[in-house]
């Protein structure tokens, strides 16, 4: 567990994007136990190697014309139980990594951006992966 004060700017960065942060198991279940439509889940992380690019890439992707219906985040290494519960909704095949992003449609994962798909890549490339998935799986924002 990291110092919460050290992590708060990273939480603030996601909340400034309009992302709803889920910090408890109850909050995760309330959202995903019977979810319909599209949702992106950011598994946030303190790791600057990857998360330092993932968050701004997501911010850029969310300015795209087509975006998920809802965007949520859980914070790995901080809100451990909420993160574990969120991952349980991704299915057994997907291995945990952070940062990562899962795009769900009616409760099923239709795109997973693992940590290894984020680390060492440019913000623009990651954002392009996300917007391609948004175009493929999400309806046009009204």
């Amino acid at each position, binding site marked *: 567990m990291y110092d919460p004060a050290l992590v708060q*700017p990273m939480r603030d960065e996601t909340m400034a994007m309009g992302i709803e942060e889920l910090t408890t198991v109850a909050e995760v279940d309330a959202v995903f136990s019977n979810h319909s439509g599209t949702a992106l889940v950011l598994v946030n992380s303190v790791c*600057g190697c990857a998360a*330092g690019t993932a968050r701004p890439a997501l911010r850029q992707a969310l300015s795209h014309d087509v975006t998920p219906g809802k965007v949520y985040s859980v914070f790995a290494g901080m809100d451990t139980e909420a993160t574990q519960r969120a991952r349980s909704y991704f299915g057994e095949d997907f291995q945990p990594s952070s940062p990562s992003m899962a795009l769900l449609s009616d409760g099923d994962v239709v795109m997973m951006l693992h940590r*290894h798909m984020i680390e060492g890549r440019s913000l623009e490339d990651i954002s392009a992966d996300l917007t391609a998935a948004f175009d493929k799986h999400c309806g046009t924002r009204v």
Partner: protein
Amino acid sequence: MSGHVFHPGHHELHGITVVVETSGDTTYVGRFDKEDDERAYLKDVGVHQAGTQSWEEYLDRTMLYGVKVEHRDLVVARGEITSVRKLTEVARS
């Protein structure tokens, strides 16, 4: 905190998921941590053994579903290592 790095001054592959091939039957996939004159240090490591699932299938599945971790920390003797490449580069090739 955009671009903030908690651990500057590390090896260029630090934090990157790599495929470590060895002179034996074993391939490791995990996050590169550091190296010294004798060893490479990996974190959250999956293992492929020749003779089981094919190497290509293993890497394809790892790309799609992530690294199935068998060792949180693993040390590999540098003398056994034949190559260290980024997973994303190996998967593209």
